[in-house]
């Protein structure tokens, strides 16, 4: 556990988070595992897996988001044609280069066909690793989708019990739920802080602090969040004359840190987004009494975020989560940032744009890749957007 860093303001916290972000060898996760023979690491890809179950087994859930812009992909390109996004190829690069050799299991959530097929590829390429395609229901009735999902969760629990060599008790699960409830609350607090006073939690900082939650044990991450929330608002920060935007489309392949930085520099505060949704996928506390798997299932069905990979059964509701995000965070507009070739983000975009148009919320859109180096066009677009909002909204 890191020592309290209150003395040096939030800079040391951010520095630590940045170091974790930069480290493609996952040293901190390796170190964690080395400290105990019963410790195992289960990797997962976006958008959401119930990390509580992994945690309850005494394992470390490790969020894998590809290799980012610091990883050159050499071998990974042998697996994908050029018209497929970059995250699977950099993830394979991580795999074949040995950077994930300490990972005991990989979960591939049902977010799109590329990640779906990657689960089968991973099984073929790494037969000694536990691999599971993690499906979630697209039917939200408790007795239909709910039952299906509880059974899925039960299968996952059973598999992890095999990996662990002993059962995972309901009490262990409940304790994990408590811990993750707390972490989600802190994440919501961070988002609330940023929405309220974005200059106090600059987007690149908030991002790396949030992302640390994908590699650190959840308890450590909660501590980090608490410390950041305590120290960040006390820093002297310049207040920019920025407009406020909601960033959407960035739920899987991540934009380079430079892109997030560039948006703010260009005049747009990011007051809400769909980055790293796993950290706050469940929008309310999960009950800590009763059947834990059932609670997790019901939470998924009734208290979870909306995203492209999730079917919206109600036409009137379609896209409203975005409108609500805009209103809730007092945003002026929306920026659609979609990874090239990303089916969920790109197919969803026209529908969301119609909804925004009807709600008279302005937006712009562009595409990126996790290793985009060209920030100039994005700065220009975002800058122009910001100017036009300030000009025309009478702010």
């Amino acid at each position, binding site marked *: 556990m890191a020592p309290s860093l209150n003395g040096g303001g939030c800079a040391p916290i951010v520095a630590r988070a940045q170091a974790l972000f930069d480290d493609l060898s996952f040293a901190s996760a390796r170190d964690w595992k080395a400290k105990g023979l019963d410790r195992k690491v289960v990797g997962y890809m976006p958008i959401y897996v119930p990390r509580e179950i992994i945690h309850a087994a005494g394992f470390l859930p490790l969020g894998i988001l590809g290799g980012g812009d610091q990883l050159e992909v050499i071998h990974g390109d*042998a*697996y*994908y*044609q050029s*018209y*497929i996004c970059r995250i*699977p190829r950099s993830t394979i690069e991580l795999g074949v280069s040995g950077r994930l050799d300490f990972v005991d299991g990989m979960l*591939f959530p*049902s*977010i*799109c*066909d*590329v990640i*779906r*097929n*990657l*689960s*089968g*590829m991973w*099984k*073929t*390429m790494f037969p000694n690793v536990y691999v*599971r*395609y993690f*499906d979630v*229901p*697209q*039917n939200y*009735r408790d*007795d*239909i*989708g709910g*039952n*299906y999902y509880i*059974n*899925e969760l039960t*299968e996952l629990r059973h598999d992890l019990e095999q990996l662990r060599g002993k059962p995972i008790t309901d009490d262990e699960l409940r304790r994990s739920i408590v811990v993750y409830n707390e972490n989600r609350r802190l994440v919501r607090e961070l988002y609330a802080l940023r929405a309220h006073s974005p200059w106090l939690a600059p987007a690149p900082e908030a991002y790396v602090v949030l992302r640390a939650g994908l590699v650190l044990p959840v308890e450590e991450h909660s501590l980090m969040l608490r410390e950041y929330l305590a120290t960040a608002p006390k820093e002297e920060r310049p207040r920019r004359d920025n407009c406020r935007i909601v960033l959407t489309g960035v739920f899987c392949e991540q934009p380079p840190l430079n892109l997030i930085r560039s948006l703010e520099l260009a005049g747009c505060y990011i007051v809400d987004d769909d980055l790293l949704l796993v950290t706050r996928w469940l929008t309310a506390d999960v009950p800590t009494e009763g059947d834990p798997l059932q609670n997790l299932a019901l939470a998924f069905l009734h208290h979870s975020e909306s995203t*492209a*990979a999730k*079917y*919206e*059964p109600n*036409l009137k509701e*379609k896209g409203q989560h975005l409108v609500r995000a805009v209103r809730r965070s007092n945003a002026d507009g929306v920026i659609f940032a*979609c990874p*090239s*070739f*990303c*089916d*969920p983000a*790109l*197919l*969803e*975009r*026209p*529908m969301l*744009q*119609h909804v925004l148009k009807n709600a008279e919320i302005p937006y712009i859109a562009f*595409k990126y890749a996790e290793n985009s180096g060209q920030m100039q066009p994005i700065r220009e677009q975002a800058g122009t957007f910001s100017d036009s909002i300030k000009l025309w909204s009478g702010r």
Partner: protein
Amino acid sequence: MTIITNSKPAPAKEAEKDASMLKQKEMMAAHYDRLTSAPETGDKVASTFVPGNLNELIMCFDLVNNLPEVNAIQNGLRRQSGAYVLEAEKIGHSEDVCTYVKSDIGMMAKGNLAPNGRKFPNPDVLLLSYTGCFTFMKWFELLREQYQCETIMLHTPYMGDGKITKNMLEYMVKQLKEEVIPKLERISGVKFDIDRLREYLTKSAAAEDDLVRVLQSAKRKPSPIDAYFGGIYYIGPIFGAFRGTDDAIDYYKFLRAEVEERLAGGKGPVTPDGDMGKEKYRLVVEGPPNYTNFRQFWKMFYDEGAVVVASSYTKVGGVYDLGFRHDPAKPLETLAEYCLGVYTNRSLPMRIDMLASYVNEYDADGLLINSIKSCNSFSAGQLLIMREVEKRTGKPAAFIESDLVDPRYFSAANIKNRLESYFQMIEQKRAGARVAA
């Protein structure tokens, strides 16, 4: 030097078709007539997808089955899809996404005309069979927005572990019982009669038997059918609005007899330029074909004496050659099993298994992958599939790239270059083997 020539290619003739292809064309035409007449006849229309096409169930409610994928294919074959795709991109759809969707959206924006020149009716219900492809979800959300009509979600879980589990079946049967059927009842005004469903399922199984015989005839040498290009015609009725009907039974009986006649005569497949000559190369093909340049693409094969003996695409609307038949004894379960088993819902290891066994069982020279730019469901992972199948069969594989219905991504020179290289590679290997022998 006498061998340098300045020959001109021969002019294209009217495409030859055998009787079953013509019959299939008639059936499709009749269906489009029925569909476009719905406003007059009062028929209600359900739209759904080919993978997970519950045609037997749809028929129980007297609904007419509309398949937007098939419409996009028709647009492609008629060379209209290019303009439709551009139109959709103009409206704001990304260049990177599925061209079936864009062709559909573009077609709707440009008059929504069916192949018979008449307007498509607005669907009364969108049966969103979420089977084997993520894009389906978004496609029908887009159509729902456009038509403001009711949409029914049927979620087919992915066979991530290579098998059907009890949980998956229960989930699907429950959805059918408690969501799909009640909603279809309400929308159609027709009460569900499970015996009627059983009757259709029995008919489906009969047609499936004959279809499988036809597909497996390609194990013989020479193969009497082309299981990819020719196959597109053969799967029409079983994948579309005819499975479960007497028409389909008749069609597949007819087709089977036709194929058996070819077998008896030692004939190869019929091609647009007449019977194919000597069979020189036997291929297994993975991936959908290109539709905008279908004939030109096919010609690159039969001109070289290459016949496709098995393909994965002809299993996208249902896999019948591994034993599955629609089973009237367990009507809802069998619908679920059917959906779960379609090709695009199978895990990557299952696909590798299927393709490798095709190469061996159909005695093919190798695997050819046609990688479709806009289809992630098929394309993501094909390079690994290629290498694994090569490893397992010891036979060379080839890789070409095109698209479903966007003509901008079909480059004849590129494809011909790669195909010819592949055929020559096989030929050289054979020559080498002869020398060694």
